[in-house]
């Protein structure tokens, strides 16, 4: 998408400051010693494969789960003692649509406004509907909305009380590219207004729209920083191999896998990305195998995705 956004200046007390969070289910540490800071006004990306503990970590942060170990403050409130105040100042958008499908759009908003004590309820509802462009459909049942509209409604309901921190759990799953783009534009607008946002996602392009990213794998935080820092921190070298036709390329793919220094081989259209940590060994293997087969080999920039695949392979598997 667009250029890497510039993170806001640090220095004020962080919006999220948690240390050594642990949460286990049935002996399995779903969240394993997670320490994380998110500065005020920052858009923090929270990345990791399925089941890596993103949702659990977010739930701990908004007081929906009690951590087994670890301490922390969210918006300056203690995670364990001030759960009620955290709730009032945080907006949490769940992964699954969790508003009432048998209530109309306006009724859902009125319910949320009532619970947050926003008065007059009617004014808040009308304004939110107008912002959403849903005024004419206010009496439609929320269950009859499309995925993209449900997501927009959920976001609108979560920010109606003007939270200082917005926690978004895979907000764009199953939403079309245009709606995703608009959603991210909205996130940036909110952040520009001073709101801190922590958003979990699978999508690389979304990660690149965050100020900072935190990568979690098997419950452990394995990388954090700006996209450039994370990619650099992975210490990977990448070569692009191209110039052969389909069958020969597939053959090359097979032979490159497992060669010394080669960690990942990924086809992108008619080219292969070959990635490895040991630059010398990688170069020798690629030159020998690909160059020997008559393909063109050029050094390339390592992508965020390459880095993530590397992290996933490297993280200790505690699922077993």
């Amino acid at each position, binding site marked *: 998408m667009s250029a890497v956004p510039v993170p806001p200046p640090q220095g004020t007390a962080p919006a999220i400051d948690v240390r050594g969070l642990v949460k286990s289910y049935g002996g399995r540490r779903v969240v394993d010693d997670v320490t994380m800071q998110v500065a005020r006004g920052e858009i923090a990306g929270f990345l990791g494969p399925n089941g890596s503990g993103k949702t659990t970590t977010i*739930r701990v942060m*908004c*007081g*929906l*789960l*009690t951590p087994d170990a670890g301490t922390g403050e969210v918006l300056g409130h203690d995670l364990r003692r001030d*759960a*009620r105040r955290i*709730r*009032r100042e*945080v907006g*949490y958008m*769940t992964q*699954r*649509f*969790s*508003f*009432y*499908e*048998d*209530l109309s759009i306006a*009724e859902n908003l*009125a*319910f*949320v*406004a*009532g*619970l*947050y*004590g926003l*008065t007059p*309820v009617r004014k808040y509802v009308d304004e939110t509907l107008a912002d959403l462009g849903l005024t004419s459909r206010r009496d439609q049942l929320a269950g009859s909305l499309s995925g993209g509209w449900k997501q927009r409604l959920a976001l609108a309901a979560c920010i109606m009380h003007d939270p200082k921190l917005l926690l978004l759990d895979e907000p764009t799953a199953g939403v079309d590219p245009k709606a995703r783009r608009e959603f991210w534009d909205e996130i940036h607008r909110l952040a520009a207004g001073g709101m801190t946002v922590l958003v979990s996602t699978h999508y690389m392009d979304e990660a690149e729209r965050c100020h900072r990213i935190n990568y979690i794998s098997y419950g452990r935080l394995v990388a954090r920083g700006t996209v450039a820092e994370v990619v650099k921190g992975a210490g990977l070298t990448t070569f692009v191999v191209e110039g052969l036709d389909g069958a020969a390329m597939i053959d090359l793919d097979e032979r490159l896998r497992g060669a010394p220094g080669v960690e990942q081989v990924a086809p992108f259209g008619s080219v292969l990305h070959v990635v490895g940590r040991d630059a010398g060994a990688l170069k020798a293997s690629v030159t020998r195998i690909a160059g020997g087969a008559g393909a063109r080999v050029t050094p390339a920039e390592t992508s965020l995705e390459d880095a993530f695949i590397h992290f996933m392979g490297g993280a200790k598997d505690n699922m077993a």
Partner: protein
Amino acid sequence: MNGILSLRRLRAMLVKETIQMRRDRVTFAMMLGIPLILLVLFGFAINTDPKHLPAALVAPTQDRYTRAIVTALEMTGYYHFTKVGVSEAEAERLISDGTVSFVVTIPSDFGRRVARGDHPQILIEADATDPAVASGAVSTLGTVAAQALRREQGASAPADQPGALQVVVHKRYNPEGVTQYNIVPGLLGVILQMTMVMMTSMALTRETERGTMENLLAMPVTPLEIMLGKVLPFLMVGAVQMAVILFAAKILFHVPFVGAMWLLLLGVLLFVLALVLLGYTISTLSRNQMQAMQLAFFFFLPSILLSGFMFPFRGMPGWAQAVGEVLPLTHFLRLVRAVMLKGADLTTVQPQIGALTAFVVVFALLALSRFRRTLD
């Protein structure tokens, strides 16, 4: 705003719950349909023949004839004199509040009349609100008493003197022994119990299963507000059901209503509150709607069987009566029968009002202590 109960938040909960209740047409139909179906189904009665029923004895003079009659009545197995030598006023109170099922009155001139052969009379008043209770005991009465008297008079008795003893039986409150008089007010309790507990037992599991619980818990609403928001709308449903049943009681079964309406309303209010809180407690204990349903039934069956609705309470063995005492329905049935059929006043039904209030408090505390504020 910071307290555990904000009217603004409670109002938001109530509005939401009421709308959802109205939109759920199947459930709504069930809430109105069940009373009608049950009323029709239970139009016929279940009769049994309980024994050892508590009785009070009003006998100003204790002569040998009196003792003979009392012994003979106890020998039948139906009467068990728990209150002996009480005054008439006291006896009236005992039968009205249900402490005894019978009052046997032997007039002071009974002995003299026996001796003179002058048509001696004894009066047996039976609490016939539950006709099953009274029928067996009353039917054996005449012959037993007459035989006892004859034995006591010995040889001096004129053989086969017709009409020597007159046993006057008053079936109180329900003179014709119409079973519906007993069943229909009872149905009010059973129907409320069935629908209220079942509906509210889903209150939280439905939120959990639809995935809305996570969102609800993430918002600043307190456990007390959630509980009240979930259960209070059912007071309206209870009121509608009560109206339907009382109307049917009057029109279809011609059940008399001699007591005070406000007292019945107070009883229904407490009973329904106890039920919805019980249902809500169940929903805090269940993981899904299926479990909630099973738990509700687990409670429902003993309530029907042991509360005195299906079988006369006094006919049950001691352990069953003990179980019955801890069911809200038992106390509500006593109350509704006493108020509707006997015209009991507040003082008379005080124990029932007290018991129902206790259930409300206990269930509310139980539910609140069980409610999990987190998803752990």
